[in-house]
């Protein structure tokens, strides 16, 4: 069916995510974190943080709604039954803590067809309420036999 590359360079409206203490704890427990910085706000405060600290991989939560726009964009036409998440990179800035508000903007970095497969690379940039970049994500996906 071919790969539509017209969306390369497209960016999506920014999303805003309010980081909540219980959500951080829920995520931390689901991935097996035991560090009290993620689970106990008093321990986090004693260590100098305003509240519980999000594990670095919590980036998938605060950028989730933004990246979803790219996955579900009809211009990209991704067939989820054939979708494989092949690679992921995150680069982190300052830690995210409960109470932060994280804005994320996603863009289409590249779309290529190679050997009959579609390669989609999306980039997410997340900033906190102080304007600091807290995470840049590169999401690489293959749609087999696209």
């Amino acid at each position, binding site marked *: 069916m071919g790969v539509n590359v017209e969306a390369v360079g497209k960016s999506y409206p920014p999303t805003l995510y309010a980081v909540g203490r219980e959500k951080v704890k829920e995520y931390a427990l689901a991935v097996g974190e035991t*560090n009290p910085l993620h689970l106990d706000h008093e321990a986090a405060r004693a260590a100098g943080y305003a509240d519980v600290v999000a594990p670095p991989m919590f980036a998938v939560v605060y950028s989730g709604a933004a990246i979803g726009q790219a996955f579900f964009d009809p211009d990209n036409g991704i067939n989820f039954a054939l979708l494989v998440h092949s*690679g*992921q990179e995150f*680069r*982190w800035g300052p830690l995210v803590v409960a109470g932060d508000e994280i804005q994320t903007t996603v863009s289409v970095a590249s779309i290529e067809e190679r050997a009959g497969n579609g390669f989609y690379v999306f980039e997410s940039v997340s900033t906190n309420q102080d304007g600091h970049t807290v995470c840049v994500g590169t999401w690489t996906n293959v749609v087999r036999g696209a």
Partner: protein
Amino acid sequence: MPSFAAGDELPELEVVPDRYVTVRYAGASGDFNPIHIDEEFAKQVGLPGRILHGLWTMAQVARAQTEAAGGPHTLRRLNVSFRGMGVLEEPITVKSTIRSIEDGVAHVDTEAWQAGTAIVRRSDADLQL
């Protein structure tokens, strides 16, 4: 703060994904793709059964780094390649080796193994020491 040198292996992280971990992770992450939570659906699309979320497995790789290096602030970058699929109720081992250290940042090669297969391979992390 632990002391590191090039060539050092970080402590391995071993974790056994229990049969409901994908349900908890779906709720925590918002990724409700049925291949992770619906056994019948997974089999209908040709999988052996429900499979792990790749990003859950990546979180185990991240945890191996932060636990070794002394906390979440140490992890500056993590780049992973997913290969094959992770399954439930089989132990996963994260192995990590320091490739080099420059300007207080350790460059680490890391992989996650399950049942003899590297389900995360050719992956690397930067750790602020």
